[in-house]
Every structure is written in C-alpha cells, then in structure tokens.
C-alpha cells in the first residue's frame, strides 16, 4: 500500500473497529496490494459499515437501544431526581428521620435498576453498544441543557449513570446471571416502576422486560 506512515496509521486505527481476525486479514490484504491510502481507508470503513448494518437485521440492537436504553434513561433520570430529592429533604429536616430508610431504599432501587438495565444492554447487544450509549446520552444531554440550577443539581439527574455503566461492563463479560440473582433483580425491576406514582409506573411497566429477560435467560445449576 502506498502512502506515508501516518496515513497508514489511520487505516490501522480504522481497522481497530473490526474483529481481531478480520482486522489481521484486511490489513494483510492492503499491505500487499498497491492501492493508495484513501482506497485502503474506504475498504476498511466500508467493511465496518457493512458489518454494523448486518447486525441491525437482528432484534437485539433494536431492543437494547430503542427498547431499553432510550426509555430507561428518561425513566431513570426522573427516578434519580426524585430519590435524591427525598434523601436531601430528610437530611435537611432531621425531624423526619424515620423517612430516611425509605428514601435510601428508593435510591438503592434506582441504582440497582440502573445496574440491571446496563447488564441487559451489555449482554443483549455487545457489538452495537455505541448505539445504546447514544440512545441513553441524547436524552441525558437534552435534559442537562434544560435543567434549571447549577453544579450538584445537575449531577442528581445522572445518579444512575455510573451503576448503569458498571452493569454494561459486567453484562459484556458475563452475558448471563445466576438464577437467584436474576429472579431477585426481576422482582426488584417490577417493584421499582411501582414506587413512582402519577402515571410514572404505567410508563415504567414497559420497563419490566429487562428483569424478566434476565430471569428467563439465567444460568441454571445443571449448566
């Protein structure tokens, strides 16, 4: 392949989006042909695009990004704000200390729901995580830009983000949970939307599916 080394590095970087074996083969093919850098880059990016498009023929990326990441980010932002506000209220007015446990419990539900949703996203569609992250980040960024207030109040919107990312990481690695954990999370996933009234739980009912998906695909003991 003709061209300066820096350009070749671009082609190699683009080939990083391919699976390791395919990257090896394609870079080898380009190394022995006499094409220029632009054609090489086109070849690599064309293959990456075709591979990505092929993935979208399955239900998995659609379910992960539009069936879960997008609605879950909206749901969890609302839950994060309510749960953190409840904890903040109790801390501000110590005479309501008896509510502290309830507030901490709701916060715990939000965090574990976010972890579970992240796990399902990571395990359902590993190769299209970028789309799920995009579907999650766009509403977050929109709400952050509209949210009145500064500093810490912004972060209240995103309490779910770190446990969610942790869940994605675990989901990518493990794919399935043990049956006990999966059923526990499924029960919790059913409870969480019900914690929020004013019609929020009706929307939340759509979000029962990740918990029960985990339970349905869980590892059984004999496996």
């Amino acid at each position, binding site marked *: 392949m003709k061209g300066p080394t820096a350009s070749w590095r671009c082609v190699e970087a683009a080939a990083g989006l391919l699976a390791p*074996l*395919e990257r*090896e*083969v*394609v*870079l*080898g*093919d*380009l*190394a*022995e*042909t006499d094409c220029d850098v632009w054609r090489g880059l*086109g*070849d*690599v990016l*064309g*293959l*990456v*695009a*075709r*591979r990505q498009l*092929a993935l979208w023929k399955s239900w998995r990326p659609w379910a992960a990004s539009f069936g879960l990441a997008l609605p879950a980010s909206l749901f969890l932002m609302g839950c994060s704000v309510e749960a953190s506000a409840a904890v903040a209220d109790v801390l501000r007015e110590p005479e309501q200390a008896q509510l502290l446990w309830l507030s901490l419990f709701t916060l715990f539900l939000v965090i574990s729901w976010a972890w579970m949703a992240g796990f399902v996203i990571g395990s359902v569609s590993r190769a299209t995580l970028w789309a799920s992250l995009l579907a999650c980040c766009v509403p977050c960024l929109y709400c952050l830009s509209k949210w009145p207030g500064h500093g810490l109040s912004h972060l209240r919107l995103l309490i779910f983000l770190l446990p969610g990312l942790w869940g994605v990481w675990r989901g990518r690695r493990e794919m399935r949970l043990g049956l006990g954990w999966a059923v526990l999370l499924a029960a919790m996933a059913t409870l969480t939307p019900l914690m929020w009234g004013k019609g929020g739980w009706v929307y939340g009912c759509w979000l029962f599916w990740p918990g029960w998906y985990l339970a349905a695909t869980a590892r059984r003991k004999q496996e």
Partner: protein
Amino acid sequence: MVGEFEFLILSAAAHLGEEAYGAAMREVIEAKCGRTCSLGALYITLDRLEAKGLVQTWMSAPTQQRGGRAKRIVRVTGEGVRAAREFYQAVIKMSSGTVWGESRRSGLPGDAA
C-alpha cells in the same frame, strides 16, 4: 441460484486454486471484469457463500510479504461448483438469440470490448 457478484467470486476462487484469498481474488476480478471491487463487498459476500456451503475458508500462516499477517484462504466446494455452473448455463441460455449472445459466436465488432 447464486447472484452475479457471488458468481464472480466463485470464478475468481476457482481460477486461483490454492492461491485464492482476498487480495488475489480482488485483483483477478478487477483485471478480468474491469470493475472495482471493495474488500468490504468481497468479505461480506464470502461470508454469505460460506454460510450457504459454497466455499470453505480458513486462516493461513502469516507471511512476510503481508507484514506478518495471515490470509483468509478460500476453496470452492462441490456445491459451489454446481451453483456456479448452474448460473453460467442460465446466462448462456438467456443470452442465446440476443444481440450480445450472437455477437459472441460470430465475432462481431463490439465483442472485443
């Protein structure tokens, strides 16, 4: 029945025999057909052909010529030979009696192109 590009890939692999792999097949297709062939189209089509059982592919040992990288070697299976023959015969039959089909036999001007 295979598609046109699948037929070209099967033919390129058959021409190259033991030396059929991505870069060599692309070179043959471009030289013989006078059209560009992207590696993306080539490998996606190869995957499809392999899924249909028309070719087999495996990784070779790395070579110095390719910067120490392996090749994906391609071999046409018996099923692939049958599928390519079927496509070729369909093209020949469909072309008989047409201007391009007759010019092939009589060597009319334009055939060289």
